[in-house]
């Protein structure tokens, strides 16, 4: 891990939701690294904790959600979780890490013009409107929008795809090194999806921006990312290179995810139904749906085991050494 620069490292991050005195774990001991310059995919289904993870990194967990334990989160060498909220807002947000929200949400203020969102962001970080205007227009152009025209429009006058491109442009305003994108293309039409993914690929390639791309769509993760981390029930099930995970996933859950997605060009023979069920609270969380269980899966909780510098949380790989040992 020394030669490659680390963009983000997260260690022992846990988040709980506290309702009526009972803690429900949303994230359990999350530990991973994102390398500088890569597109890091986080895939998971509803309830897997993937959006909570984004919010935790951005320090936006609000009650009833709480971060527990003593996590360490470093972004380009800076400890972003121990610094004051004020310093984080002023120095880290948008200048080091920025964020693109879910496309289905109404993330833009309907009473403000598009350009005002850029101005607000700049002035909040001590940069004047005049200084940022050109940069804003340049970014709008980069995401293939007509800058002068779109700048003075209101959010409701844009289509969903155009709004998503505005959000991407906005995320780049203060030259961040890392952009976290949460379901950034999910609610869009397929053709629009592809346009936007190509823009993201291009940003990554030409500007060297590191991207954390959170999605439930495996095909999109396969198309876009270099590394994939699979989340299930708030835990990391597997981390590995995208190509390997798509072709030969290790974890039974990853296997079932990959086989549940039909292709429009390739063979459909491998497509298989996954057993339905809720995550288990005892033993391995996937033991209620897994086809490869043995007794130990119902008793003990598996560690993350290392295989060829990838990681998998499954007893079937327990002959390999646990992570960190």
């Amino acid at each position, binding site marked *: 891990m020394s030669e490659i620069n680390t963009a983000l490292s997260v260690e022992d991050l846990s988040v709980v939701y506290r309702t009526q005195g009972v803690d429900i774990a949303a994230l359990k001991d999350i530990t991973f690294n994102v390398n500088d310059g890569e597109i890091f995919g986080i895939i998971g289904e509803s309830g897997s904790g993937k959006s909570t993870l984004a919010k935790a990194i951005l320090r*936006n967990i609000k009650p009833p959600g709480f971060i527990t334990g003593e996590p360490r989160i470093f972004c380009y060498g800076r400890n972003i979780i121990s610094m004051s909220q004020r310093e984080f807002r002023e120095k880290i947000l948008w200048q080091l890490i920025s964020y693109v929200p879910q496309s289905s949400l109404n*993330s833009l*203020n309907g009473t*403000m*013009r598009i350009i005002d969102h850029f101005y607000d962001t700049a002035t*909040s970080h001590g940069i004047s409107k005049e200084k940022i205007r050109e940069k804003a227009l340049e970014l709008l152009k980069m995401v293939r929008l007509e800058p002068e025209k779109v700048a003075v429009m209101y959010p409701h006058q844009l289509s969903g795809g155009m709004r998503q491109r505005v959000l991407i442009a906005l995320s780049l305003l203060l030259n961040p090194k890392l952009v976290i994108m949460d379901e950034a293309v999910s609610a869009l039409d397929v053709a629009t999806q592809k346009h936007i993914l190509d823009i993201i690929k291009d940003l990554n390639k030409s500007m060297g921006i590191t991207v954390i791309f959170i999605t439930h769509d495996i095909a999109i993760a396969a198309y876009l990312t270099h590394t994939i981390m699979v989340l299930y029930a708030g835990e990391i099930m597997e981390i590995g290179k995208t190509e390997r995970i798509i072709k030969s996933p290790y974890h039974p859950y990853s296997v079932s995810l990959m086989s549940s997605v039909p292709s429009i060009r390739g063979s459909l023979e491998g497509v298989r139904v996954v057993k339905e069920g809720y995550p288990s609270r005892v033993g391995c969380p996937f033991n209620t749906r897994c086809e490869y269980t043995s007794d130990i899966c119902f008793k003990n909780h598996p560690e993350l085991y290392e295989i060829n510098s990838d990681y998998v949380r499954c007893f079937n790989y327990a002959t390999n050494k646990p992570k960190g040992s």
Partner: protein
Amino acid sequence: MRSLWLIRRVAMAFITVLVTIIISWALMEYSPESPANTLLNNLRVTEYSNPRLLIEMEQYLNTLRPHGNPVVNALEYIWQILHGNMGLDVISQIPVTKIIATAIPWTIFIVSTSLLISFVIGIRVGQFMGYKRGTKSDSTLTMLFTVIRSIPIYISGALLLFILGYQMRLFPSGGAYSATVQVGLNLPFIESVLYHSILPIATLTLANLGGWALHMRANTIYTLGEDYVTYAELRGITSRQIETKYVGRNALLPLYTSLVIAIGFSFGGSVFVEQIFSYPGIGNLLYYSITNNDYTLEMGIFIILITAVVIGVLLADLTYSLIDPRVKTGD
């Protein structure tokens, strides 16, 4: 498209006013009471009751009553109204427009002042409560406002008058200004007017405050949960900007319509207050005209009240698109 919608909307408002005039006119026309009856009843009980005089009086008053086809009468009345002529007051024989003109500034003064004060304080406190939702200060204020809002205005007015006016003698018990000052643009007069207006304005403000505050509180809480507020926080926008441009503006917008409509309605809303504080506004006039069956004056005031409400609603409708870019008028 837009101008066509505008014309339609204005025409609708005009027709609404006309229809309400016709309905009120019909109610008056077929009402068993008449100003003549009231006047005669008054005369009968006085010492001057002379049967001959009474009969003469009755004959005279009957000539004042409209005769002939009621439809023609109604049309004639409306025609006159459209020309700004509301006829003569039955009892005093002074033009109705003139009577109303002297009363209406007093009403506008106390109503608009109280509306402004209650709105400004209400939205401030409401936003504070919204931000502090679930805390002790929020729940205390919510309870307080709910209680205040449910007290009828004639009770709160009477209480204020009794305690601050009669018991503590802090404020005058009625009227718009003291009888000893010279009417005109001079300092003692203005001081007296302001001094006399404090209790009525306080009563009206108290009545409106809870509504604005609770409404703003609800809007603020709703807006705080909106995605664009979270996204603004994540962008590192200062909390001050979020409070004004994101939460404040979006929570306030829906209240704009209520405010403009409230202005229209408030002309009629001060009847009780003006009655309690013997304030010489249009509400007091309305009370007087009803008790005396002074139907030309009654009708005149009705028309003013109705027109104010209709114009308020119309204005709210027409101008909302100017302040909220999301709404395109006429779409």
